[in-house]
C-alpha cells in the first residue's frame, strides 16, 4: 500500500518533468495502473465490494480509454514528436516538493492524494500545450479519486459513476477542442489564445 502510494506520487513528479507529449501520456497511464492497484489492494484488505467496481472503472477509463483517445488524437493532429516547453523546470520541481511537504503538514492520511492533486494543478500552470493541460487535469482528478479511496473507501457507487461519466464527457470535449483550437490558432499552444482581453480606453 505504502509502496503503491509512493509510486503514484513518483509518477506525478515524472509528469511534471516530462517534456515529450507521448511520454506524458504513457506516464499518465502508469499512474492510472498504480491507482487501480491501490484500489484493488484496498478492496481486498477492507472487504469493500464496491471498491472492486471502482478499480475496474479506473482501469477502463484512466488506463485504457483516455490514453487511447489521446494517442489517436495526437496521431490525427500529427504532433507525436512534439515537445512542450516547461517554463522553469527546476523551480517547478522545487515548487512541487514544497507543495507535497505542505500537504504532509496539513494531514497525514490525505497527504499523498492532496499532493497528487496539487502537482496536477502545478503541471497545468507550468505548461503551454493544450494536451499537457488535459493530462494535468486528469492527474488532479486522480488525486481526488485517490483521496476518496484511502480516506473513505470510495464514494457511494452512484457518485462514483456520476464522476466517471463527467470525466469521460470532459475527455471527449477536450478532444473536440484540440481541433477547434488548431483551426483557430494553427497550433495547440494555448498561450497564443489571447484575442480576448480588456480593452483599455
Amino acid at each position: 500500500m505504502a509502496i503503491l502510494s509512493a509510486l503514484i506520487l513518483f509518477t506525478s513528479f515524472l509528469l511534471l518533468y516530462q517534456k515529450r507529449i507521448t511520454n506524458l501520456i504513457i506516464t499518465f497511464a502508469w499512474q492510472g495502473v498504480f491507482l487501480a492497484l491501490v484500489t484493488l489492494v484496498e478492496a481486498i484488505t477492507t472487504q469493500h465490494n464496491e471498491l472492486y467496481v471502482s478499480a475496474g472503472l479506473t482501469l477502463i477509463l484512466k488506463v485504457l480509454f483516455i490514453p487511447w483517445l489521446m494517442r489517436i488524437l495526437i496521431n490525427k493532429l500529427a504532433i507525436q514528436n512534439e515537445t512542450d516547453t516547461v517554463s522553469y523546470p527546476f523551480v517547478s520541481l522545487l515548487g512541487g516538493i514544497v507543495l507535497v511537504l505542505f500537504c504532509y503538514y496539513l494531514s497525514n492520511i490525505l497527504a499523498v492524494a492532496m499532493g497528487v492533486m496539487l502537482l496536477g494543478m502545478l503541471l497545468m500552470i507550468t505548461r503551454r500545450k493544450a494536451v499537457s493541460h488535459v493530462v494535468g487535469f486528469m492527474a488532479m482528478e486522480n488525486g481526488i479519486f485517490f483521496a476518496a479511496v484511502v480516506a473513505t473507501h470510495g464514494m457511494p457507487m452512484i457518485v462514483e459513476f456520476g464522476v466517471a461519466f463527467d470525466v469521460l464527457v470532459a475527455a471527449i470535449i477536450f478532444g473536440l477542442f484540440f481541433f477547434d483550437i488548431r483551426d483557430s490558432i494553427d497550433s495547440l499552444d494555448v498561450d497564443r489564445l489571447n484575442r480576448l482581453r480588456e480593452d483599455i480606453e
Partner: protein
Amino acid sequence: MIALYLTLAIPLISIPIMAMIGHYRLAGKINFAITSAGFIAAVFLLKTFLTHGNLLSPTSQYYLDAFNISLILLTTFIGMTTAWFSVTYMEHSIKLGRLSPGNLRLYYSMYQAFMFSMLLALLANNIGILWVSLEAATLTTVPLVSLYRSPESVEAAWKYFILCIVGIALALFGTVLLYFSAQKITGNPSDAILWTMLYSHANLIDPAIFSIAFIFLLVGYGTKIGLVPLHNWLPDAHSESPAPMSALLSGLLLNMGLYALIRFKIIGNLVLNNHLISYTLMGFGLLSFLFAAVMLHRQRNIKRLYSYSSIEHMGLMTFAFGVGTSLATFAALFYMLVHSLAKSAVFISVGNVIQLTSTQSMEKIRGLLKLKPEVGWGLLLATIAIAGIPPFAIFNSEFMIIMATVHNYLWLALIIVIGIVVALAGLFRHLQLMVYGEPTSTPDTYQAECNMWPVFCHIAIILILGLYTPSFLVTCLTEAAKLIS
C-alpha cells in the same frame, strides 16, 4: 412527489428528442413547449410544497425545502422565456449563416441537458450528485459557448472550460473531505453523503476538517459564481456565447454555484463557531463587487459590460450571505431571484440589439430609441432595473442589504453605497449614448425580427415584485432565511 419526478424527467427525456428534430423552426417551438411544460411541473411542485412542506424522496436522493423551491421556479421560468427568445434569435442566426441546422440540433439538445443538470443540482440531496450535476452544467454549456466556432468563441469556451473544471475539481476534493469527516458519525457510512444527514448530525462533524473542506468548496464553487479573483473566464464566456446562452449563464448558472456554496454554509453554521465562513464570504463578495463596479467604466463591448455587472451583483449577494443576519439573508435570497430576471432580460435585449446593429461594440451602437423603439425601451428599462433604481425590485434588495450592513458594519455599508453609485454611473455612461441620439448604423439588411416580449414580461414581474411581494414568496424566503442565517 410526482411533480418532483416530472420536473426532472421532462428535460431529461427531451435531450434525445431535441437531438433528433432536424427542422429548425419546429425545433424552436417544440423546445419552447417543453420548457413551458417544465415550468408548469414546477408550479405544481410549489403547490405540493405549500401544502406538505419539506419533501424527502423515499430513497433520500432528492430533497425539497424552502431554499430550493423558489430557485426551481425561477430556473424553469427563465428557461421557458429564454426558449421563447431562442426561436427568433436562432432562426435569424441561421439566416445570417452563422449557424448550420446541425449545430442547432446540438444547441437545443444541450439546452435541455443544461436545464436538467441545473434542476438536478437544485433537487439533489446527495452532495456528490450536486457536484456531478454542476460539473455537467459546465460541460453542457461549453459547446454552446463556442457554438459559432469563431476564433474568439473557441478561445472563450476553452478558458471557461479549463478554469471551471479545475475550479470545480477542487470542490470535489472539498466534498470528499466533508464526506470523510462525517462518515464515522452517521450510522450507515454511505449516508454521510446526504445533505439532510450532514445537517442533522452537524454538531458531531470535526470543525478542523470542515474548515479545510469549506475553503476548497468556496474556491471551487466560487469559480462558478465568478468571484474575483476567480472570475477571469466569466466576461469572455458570457460575451462570446449566443445571446440566449448569455441570458442563461448570467441569469441561472451563476446562481447555481452560489446555491451550492450556501448549502454548505448552512451546515457550517452549526459546525463552526468562528467567523471563517462569514468573513470569507464577505471578503470575496466585497472584492468582487467593488472590482466589477470599477471595471464597468472601462468596457467597450456591450456584452462584456453586462457580464461585469453580473460579477458585481453576485459579489453583493455573496457579501450579504456573509453578513448572515436574517434580514441580510432574506435580502440576498430575494436578490438572487430578481437579479436573474433582470439580467436575463438585459441579455435578451442585448441579443436583439446585436442582431439589429450587427455589432457588439458600444461605440457603434447609437440611437436605439429611433432605430427600433421597442428594443431601445427594453434595454433602457432592463438596465434601469439592473442598476437598482426604484420602483424595481433590485432596489428593495439592495436597500435591505444596506440596512442589514449598517447595523453591524457601518463602514462597509458606506463602501457599498459608494460601490452602487459607481456601478450605476458605469452602466449609464454607456447606456445613454447607445439609447438616445441619432442612429449611425443602418438597420440590418435582413431586417432582424425582434422578440422583446420576454423582456417586457420579466420587467413587469420585477416591477410588481418591487411594489408587492406575494405571500407564498414571503413564506418561502422567510423560512429559507431562517435556515441559512
